[in-house]
């Protein structure tokens, strides 16, 4: 299974980060930061494959500081 923002979704072979985000119903744009486990994933890396058990966080910048 893959966890995306606390939502559990079913893993399948060949699943990418982009696929997982779409399955979870999340949206991303240039204001979002993606964390895979504890690493930061760049926008241009979302076609990277995920492994079973990956934890993804889709985080959105709301303000500055």
């Amino acid at each position, binding site marked *: 299974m893959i966890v995306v923002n606390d939502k559990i979704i079913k893993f399948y072979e060949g699943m990418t980060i982009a696929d997982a985000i779409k399955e979870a119903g999340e949206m991303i744009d*240039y204001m979002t*930061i993606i964390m895979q486990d504890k690493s930061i994933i760049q926008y241009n890396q979302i076609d990277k494959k995920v492994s079973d058990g990956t934890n993804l966080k889709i985080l*959105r910048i709301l303000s500055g500081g």
Partner: protein
Amino acid sequence: MWSKLLLDMKNLSVTKEPYDKEYEELGGRSLIAQYMMKNVPPTCEPLGKDNQLIICTSIFAGTRLTTAHRLSVGGKSPLTGGIKESNSGGSAAYQLAGHGIKLITVKDLPEEEGLWLLHIDAQGNASLEDASEYKGLNNYDFVEKMHEMYGDKVATISIGAAGERLYKSASLQITEFNSNHPSRAAARGGLGALMGSKGLKAVVIENPVERYQVEYADKQKFDELVSSFNKIVAAGAKKDPFHNIGTISTIEVTANNGVLPVDNFSGRLFPEYKEVGAGKFMNNLETRGGRNKVPCQPGCVVQCSNCYNDKDGKYLTSGFEYETLAIMGPNCHISDLDAVAQMDRICDNIGVDTIEAGNAVAMCMETGRIKWGDTQAALSLLKEMEEGTEFGRIMGDGCEAVGKYLGCKRIPVVKHQSLPGYDPRNTKGTGITYATSPMGADHTAGLTMGRAFDDCGRSAQAYASTKLQVAMCFSDSIMCLFAFANAANDLYLLGELMATLYGGTPDFGRISMLGVKTLLTERAYNKMAGIKAEEDRLPEFFYKEKSSATGSKFDIIDYELEVLFDF
């Protein structure tokens, strides 16, 4: 009933009085605006006897509303020459509220040479004490002494050597809840110099023996509402990069969109940004025993702060934020995260605004005094500020002072205050805020960065800036803007919370009108202080130079800025 403390530095007295009924439903920025309009002549000298230092808590101080314990500091700014409200997290507002103190005002000037501190003991007795033994002591050493004397629950608001020397970039540093370091800052506008001019070294607030109990119109209903509100903020915080990483995460967005300032707002991209990015930051925290998710005040559910260690695992700095990183890092062509953390530590210790200091360093690089990206030279400049050398004192007066001294043609200031970490050519609504805010170039006054606004035309950008400037006026009166942002869809609850605390109708209009009134009061004050409409502009180079990242210039015309507040 809430109290206020009135410090008279001419007579070296402190008196405690009941808090004014007319200010009952005000706090933070809204209180500062109305108090200053009534009590601080707009044409007074910022470091003269008629200016007042104002320290206050928020509208919901003393309650369980998350992040209600922001501390607001106000006065006529020695940097901008206009009204200034600078707010900070930390433990001081929580402890002041625990003693039932809503407001502290400091007026006049001492007649004799000296240094004092305001001490509020565990029983709530307030006294002005001789602090001459702490003269020249910087914030970290000062706070350590206060902890030795009064225990680790004492909260402090202090100035370092910078404030004592009246540097225009001087900050007030506040102890952070949880870490106890003096790493939270009321940084912008040189209010540390205002405090220094009054001969006041610090406010030292002991943990109260018995906490003040707030009087509610309907406590049961308030408690129900505040639990709901706090849960909403907490739920939003779970998806907030500020909670999961820290504010440094902002660079992951700004770096790829031409918003991150690079080489004194050159408009270029900075491919090395990953060396100072969120990934590097998180890796260093994990491998060196640092931590994030640190709450700077009790009850905060966003918990955006951090403790950052050096390569040997020793504590280096805390409250290490995006603004410091952006302006002292890529804006100075520096890609060494540890060096920027060290600069952050120096600035917190001597008590200066890291944005002003970083932009001052960039002036030195732009004019060739030191090389772009030379971290050792940048650190040496901050050391000069610490030592108070001739050039160090110029550095202490901030970006514009250094830029003019060195003959720089591209000085990124509005109303003498230097720009924070967002290039206005690629977030034009933010540029409008920089230009028109009564605070000077201030991102917290209305940051519009985000696709909904940045892709839109000029009218939409202006609309976004106006709306956010009003919203930030009431946010700065109530809570931390990071918590506020996570409750953006449920702000109507604030009207209900007002009613259950103060009575009256549960109408959000009372909150939004507070924002409008505060903003218009600040603009009126600045006009009376002599700040002209022509100062509501960005520096010329933003209009003329294209951002090489996007091809964009700041193309908002003067008329659009002039009519922004014709409500």
